[in-house]
């Protein structure tokens, strides 16, 4: 028996049974049959054609007009059948694209991989989750020869593939910076020139660069239009915005960046983030920066890594598991 005959046989049996009993169990069998025919790429017009053949066999005395009406229904279904087959093709294409992007994601992760530096006096946590498969957020840690922890965090305006391609450029540019001069304003000025030269004018990049010196306990930083982070003072038990002024990268090649500094006491925290954290949308409304602070407070007793992960989990759920922007959150806490 050919596959078509087998399906038709099954369809006939189940349909005849249903016409007699109108029983739910038969409909469940019907649903399973329907799933099977979908899996075997049987088109909706094929179903209607089978329906007509079968009903003619079950009831040889079926009125002519019913058969004509089914012929008409079949004609109507032809366009649906086409859309259906287009769907199969599109799904294959999508699968192909998906595996292509997966490879690109690997290339990107290889390129951008960074590890949290081990410094005994600070606890550092970092999480970065792309909204789509490829990220337009970038973060990077370097512990330099003086023992300072350098942290870069950047966000390409735009998401997905083009943003990821820009991000790779930032990485090449960062790599080619001389190791010896890593003070924040110099780093941003240098990157700004490279971005201005190489990136097409429709793309903008915001960036924050900071250096923590575990001996002087100074945190020095500069920002190129980046979403401000927070400074948490343990003594006052209070969060402050980590304000810093500066134009986004790639607009004006001669821009200068101001450098700021803050003294960090024991148990103080530096919170760095991208706008994907602060611009979480819940039911079409943005959450407030104060909501982020509340969440950080809620999990502040945890280690820095557990803390950033807990905040992410809550925000992910609040957004119904659909990120609208790349999400990067870094927390640095002075221990002693």
């Amino acid at each position, binding site marked *: 028996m050919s596959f078509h005959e087998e399906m038709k046989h099954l369809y006939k049996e189940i349909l005849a049974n249903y016409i007699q009993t109108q029983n*739910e*169990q038969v*409909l*469940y069998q019907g*649903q399973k049959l329907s*799933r099977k025919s*979908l*899996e075997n*790429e049987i088109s909706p017009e094929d179903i209607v054609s089978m329906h007509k053949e079968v009903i003619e066999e079950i009831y040889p005395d079926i009125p002519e007009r019913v058969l004509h009406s089914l012929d008409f229904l079949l004609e109507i279904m032809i366009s649906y059948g086409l859309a259906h087959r287009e769907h199969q093709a599109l*799904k294959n294409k*999508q*699968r192909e694209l998906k595996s292509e992007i997966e490879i690109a994601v690997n290339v990107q992760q290889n390129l951008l991989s960074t590890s949290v530096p081990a410094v005994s006096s600070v606890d550092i946590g970092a999480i970065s989750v792309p909204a789509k498969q490829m990220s337009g957020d970038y973060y990077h840690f370097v512990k330099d020869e003086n023992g300072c922890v350098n942290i870069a965090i950047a966000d390409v305006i735009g998401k997905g593939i083009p943003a990821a391609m820009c991000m790779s450029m930032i990485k090449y540019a960062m790599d080619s910076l001389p190791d010896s001069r890593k003070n924040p304003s110099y780093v941003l000025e240098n990157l700004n020139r490279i971005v201005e030269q190489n990136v097409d004018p429709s793309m903008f990049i915001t960036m924050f660069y900071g250096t923590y010196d575990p001996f002087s306990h100074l945190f020095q930083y500069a920002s190129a239009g980046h979403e401000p982070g927070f400074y948490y003072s343990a003594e006052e038990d209070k969060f402050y915005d980590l304000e810093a002024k500066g134009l986004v990268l790639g607009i004006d090649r001669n821009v200068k960046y101001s450098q700021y500094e803050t003294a960090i006491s024991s148990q103080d925290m530096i919170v760095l983030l991208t706008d994907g954290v602060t611009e979480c949308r819940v039911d079409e409304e943005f959450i407030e920066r104060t909501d982020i602070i509340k969440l950080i407070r809620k999990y502040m007793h945890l280690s820095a890594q557990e803390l950033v992960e807990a905040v992410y989990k809550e925000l*992910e759920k609040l957004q119904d*598991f*659909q990120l609208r922007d790349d999400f990067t959150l870094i927390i640095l806490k002075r221990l002693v």
Partner: protein
Amino acid sequence: MQFQSCVKIVTEWDIVAARQLGRNVSKELGFGTVDQARITTAISELARNIYLYAGKGKVCIEKINRMGKSGLLIVASDEGPGIADIRKVMEDGYTTSGGLGAGLPGVKRLMDEFEIESVVGEGTEIKAIKWLR
């Protein structure tokens, strides 16, 4: 108190019982044929998930009323292994007609509202609502 009724899902026959319950309630509420079929398919899918992946659990059907609208609420809960990556399970285009049936994105499409809560090692609860138009 509002109407609520549950079916325990242990064997495949229980899937049919859950479907029957859903169809009766949706008919009572005055849903049209197509919506009845959609609700029943959603229930079927949820019950089948429990049967296949959690081993056992239950499907409850509730008539609800909110802000003047009435509707049907399905609550499917189990104490199975739970879902580690909900974002992935809710992703589209890789289950339907790939052999696994409509999957959760399908259930979400068949209904008007959809909510999922899952803890790995503890279980999963899914709530889905269809409103009467």
